[in-house]
């Protein structure tokens, strides 16, 4: 395989961005549909090339293809080159990114139909895909960071796509700034690693960690710095607050952000640097604890949200926590395997939410209900995705979640119990949404909604494809390909751990059924019994308030920064003006000498200089 193939995978979506931005938007304004076609064609081509790469990587010895490097910058004693890395991890991620992105673009054709920003939307989507592909392929930390920020930029642009909505503009800024707090740690870690090792190359860093040249507290701090970047991008506690707000973007954007790009980047980063993390027990346990805690923390909030996209957002945060937990307990293969499976069912869930919104004009599950009859396809696919995320055998979610639980059980029993509890919560909140949305009677939707009807084929088709993938993706030998173990199709059911988790998931579904479909139990009385908890969850632990009102506004902007501002105006400038004022008073005496004309001052300076020069001439 020629090395240009890997470049083409990145560049195809980039060309699509360039063509849309510089040709279609300025010159072919009345044919915006071209933008959609070009995007789909370029990402489709990238998908085909990614498959080629995958096949080559499978055939290659050690599942690694050697690739050439190109020199980019030489300054002083530093030389930085660019290159791509093609191993099993990159190959799997390429497939995830291109396939989910392609299906999202097809779906967007229907969802974004008639939007005035249609071309702009596809331009950003192309660039988004390009950045994510670059991030996946980058073989050194600096270039990974470059695309990492590119992914952040595109999320910013797409979350704020409907910029005339103040909430969208706010959410976009929030997403960028919150993730940048994490990026600060990442950048610091890159500088730190370079200062210690003199290289940005990920392969070399792994070698140094392997032979012990990079170890101890240096490695731990570097790994934690890198992980802070991952915490920001993958919306882990405590930097998770941007992701729910990111719902303000168009729904297909959420499907892409939550499945294959942006949030996947953080998990991918940890996986990419896994050999480094693996040599620092402290870093590993940090990753595991943050992941395990985030999984259950976000799930509890997901229990009580009434906006279907908010439930899905917290579910994403929770599932990313699972992935981090999996990586933190040493399960590189299972963590990425879960990312792989999650990409399909989560993209599907968001498309389902978009489809429902298309029909009802709302995302509030209290206003929906009874959509099963009017939207059978949406219902069927949503059901499959929900079963998959709940971890029901033999759907895809089962296989990877099982792997993570098994690893956690072996290494971190406490976190294992948290993860088990999350299995129950996950099943409950997903089926709560399912029953409220599709079961019972229709409760009217938003006031200006048209009669209920199924979404067009262009939206249903990608959903159906994703539904198939949500069933079968777990059967693929991804885990084995990435160096983990695989289970037999039926023998997996023999393990007690699997049976317990299935039981918990079933209980979660049953409870949701009892509360929201059969109404055996009263939701209201349950809520009153657990009133303090309900308030805590529905206010999202007051973290948004804590961050924005207390920390950012009270402590920084109106506190520390205001103090600096006051100091600048009153003390520094005050002193300057004070001295000037004193000089003015003194100057009254010799005012007659002063003409107030700057030209005269200039002349005086010049004469002064001449005088000095003359002095030198005479006395020198």
């Amino acid at each position, binding site marked *: 395989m020629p090395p240009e193939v890997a470049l083409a995978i990145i560049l195809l979506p980039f060309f699509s961005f360039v063509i849309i931005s510089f040709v279609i938007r300025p010159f072919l304004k009345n044919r915006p549909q071209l933008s959609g076609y070009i995007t789909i064609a370029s990402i489709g081509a990238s998908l085909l090339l990614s498959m080629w790469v995958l096949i080559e990587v499978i055939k290659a010895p050690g599942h690694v293809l050697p690739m050439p490097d190109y020199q*980019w910058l030489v300054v*002083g004693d530093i030389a930085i080159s660019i290159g791509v890395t093609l191993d099993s991890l990159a190959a799997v991620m390429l497939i995830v990114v291109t396939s989910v992105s392609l299906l999202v673009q097809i779906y967007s054709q229907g969802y974004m139909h008639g939007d005035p920003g249609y071309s702009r939307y596809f331009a950003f989507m192309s660039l988004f895909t390009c950045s994510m592909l670059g991030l996946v392929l980058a073989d050194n930390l600096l270039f990974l960071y470059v695309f990492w920020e590119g992914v952040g930029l595109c999320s910013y642009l797409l979350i704020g796509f409907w*910029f005339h909505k103040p909430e969208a503009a706010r959410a976009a800024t929030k997403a960028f700034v919150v993730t940048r707090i994490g990026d600060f740690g990442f950048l610091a870690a890159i500088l730190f690693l370079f200062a210690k090792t003199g290289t940005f190359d990920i392969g070399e860093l792994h070698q140094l960690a392997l032979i012990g040249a990079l170890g101890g507290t240096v490695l731990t701090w570097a790994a934690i710095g890198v992980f802070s970047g991952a915490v920001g991008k993958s919306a882990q506690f405590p930097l998770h607050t941007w992701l729910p707000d990111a719902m303000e973007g168009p729904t297909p954007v959420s499907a892409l952000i939550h499945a294959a790009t942006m949030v996947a980047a953080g998990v991918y980063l940890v996986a990419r640097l896994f050999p480094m993390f693996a040599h620092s027990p402290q870093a590993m346990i940090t990753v595991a604890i943050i992941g395990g805690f985030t999984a259950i923390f976000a799930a509890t909030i997901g229990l009580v949200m009434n906006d279907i996209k908010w439930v899905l957002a917290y579910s994403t945060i929770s599932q990313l926590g699972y992935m981090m937990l999996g990586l933190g307990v040493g399960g590189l293969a299972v963590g990425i395997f879960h990312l792989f499976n999650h990409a399909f069912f989560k993209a599907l869930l968001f498309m389902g939410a978009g489809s429902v919104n298309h029909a009802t004009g709302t995302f509030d599950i209290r206003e929906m209900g009874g959509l099963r009859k009017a939207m059978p396809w949406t219902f069927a696919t949503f059901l499959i995705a929900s079963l998959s995320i709940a971890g029901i055998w033999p759907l895809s979610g089962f296989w990877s979640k099982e792997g993570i639980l098994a690893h956690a059980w072996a290494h971190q029993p406490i976190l294992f119990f948290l993860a088990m509890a999350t299995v129950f919560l996950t099943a409950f909140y997903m089926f709560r949404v399912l029953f409220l949305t599709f079961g019972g009677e229709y409760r009217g939707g938003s006031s200006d909604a048209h009669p209920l009807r199924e979404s067009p084929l262009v939206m249903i088709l990608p959903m159906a494809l994703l539904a198939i993938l949500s069933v079968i993706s777990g059967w693929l030998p991804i885990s084995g390909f990435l160096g983990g173990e695989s289970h037999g199709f039926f023998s997996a059911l023999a393990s007690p751990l699997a049976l317990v988790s299935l039981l918990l998931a079933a209980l979660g579904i049953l409870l949701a059924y009892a509360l929201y479909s059969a109404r055996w139990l009263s939701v209201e009385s349950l809520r009153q019994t657990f009133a303090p908890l309900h308030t805590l969850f529905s206010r999202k632990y007051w973290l948004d308030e804590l961050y924005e009102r207390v920390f950012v506004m009270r402590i920084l902007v109106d506190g520390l920064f205001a103090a600096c501002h006051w100091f600048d105006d009153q003390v520094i400038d005050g002193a300057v003006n004070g001295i000037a004022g004193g000089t003015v008073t003194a100057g009254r005496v010799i005012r007659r000498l002063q003409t107030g004309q*700057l030209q005269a001052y200039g002349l005086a300076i010049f004469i002064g*200089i001449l005088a000095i020069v003359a002095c030198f001439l005479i006395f020198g």
Partner: protein
Amino acid sequence: MSFPYLSIIIFLPLMGAIAIALLPRAEPRRVKLIAAFFTLLAFLLSAALFFMFDRSLDGPQFVEQASWIPSINVQYFLGVDGLSLPMLILTTMLGFLAVLVSWRIDRRAREYFAWLLVLETGILGVFCSLDLILFFLFWEVEIIPMYLLISIWGTGRKEYSAMKFVIYTLLGSALMLAGILLLYSHAGTFDMVALAQMGLEPALGSLLATAIFFLLFFGYAVKLPVFPFHTWLPDAHTDAPTAVSLILAGILIKMGGYAMIRVCVSIFPETSQTYAPLLVALAVVSVLYGAAVTLRQRDLKRLIAYSSISHMGYVLLGIFALSQVSMTGATLQMFSHGIITGLLFALVGLVYDKTHVRSIPELGGLARRMPIILVVFSVAGLAALGLPGTSGFAAEFLVFLGSFRSTVVSGIQIYTILGVLGIVITAGYILWMLQRVFYGPPKAQYEGVLDADRLERFTIFSLAAVIMLIGIYPRILTDVIDMGILPIFGGLGL
């Protein structure tokens, strides 16, 4: 002596100014065309120098050397090396674009454009002089046109701001002149190349070397500006007309950083190392303090002005981290910031021209009215917050990389990390500003507001293109800068 390229470049704008002054009938359009012609010619010539520049030599090139006042050994000595060439190009490019940005100025157009061109000559002279007295004279030339441009064509408290600028600068240059003369009295020459090679410090003794170093440094610190000598900057930038803000922020303050490397570090390598911890700390204060105060600004132009203080902190950090990479980064940061902030001021000028509002809370929803301005504003803003792929990232990253590995200051890693923290605050104020000015529902009072016209588009697109070009392939400049920094770094004996 070869063909006097540098003299021609330096004096082309002055010749333009004289031509404008001698013009019998001062029709504004003709004045503008003359100004544009002369500045464009200077730009094209300097671009030609950029291609003729030999990237394998580390000394000054295109040298013009003639004795001027022989009795005190003052020379007319010009030359550019890898450090000054980027500054030369930056100046001629922004000088030309400043004329285009001023296209709508019709009030006393003849004087305005004449002064603008004189200003450019002064700045060009600073970057090309290799004799301290010549350097000082050019340094002073800039003050008068700047004072007049702000106080006549400015807005707001323009007389106050102009006078503040003049007093600060004169104070700085008085000390600088004292430093230069002290230096001369011991070395017997004003030749900057010879002074750098002499290794003067042992002869001077540490006390005298320190005194001269800080006399000179103070003059440059006011210009850059360094906390706490910065309060002239927001006032002058805010009240100056758009093109003058562009020159001030784009080039003028770079004279400070340039001179710190060219004079302070080159001639006083030992003293620089001794005081590097202090200056690096001051740099970090400038970065964080500047960013904190920027975040509080409610006036669009003042916000951009304050952000310069923070960004110039990175220049100071890079210079006094005293590593080859960090000084190259600092020089790239000067160029990059010149383009980025020049563009930001041009854009703020456009927004103000069209809406007559500069208060951020009053603006809002302009995205639909001025989509092109929004796109370029976003590019410039993202470059200011150091997004990879823009020149801002390339420059700041080199500064961080070089500083982090520097061996001169112990604990510089902590300072660098604190400096990196600045990029979070920068993201905050840039994105907040974009959000408040452009996003949100369109406001009724900006109903008929127009987007950039053809000439304006040319100006802002060309600057945005330079930002992207350097961001994607910084070697265009770093290969040149690196050769300029090499002998200076060598002189440090590290």
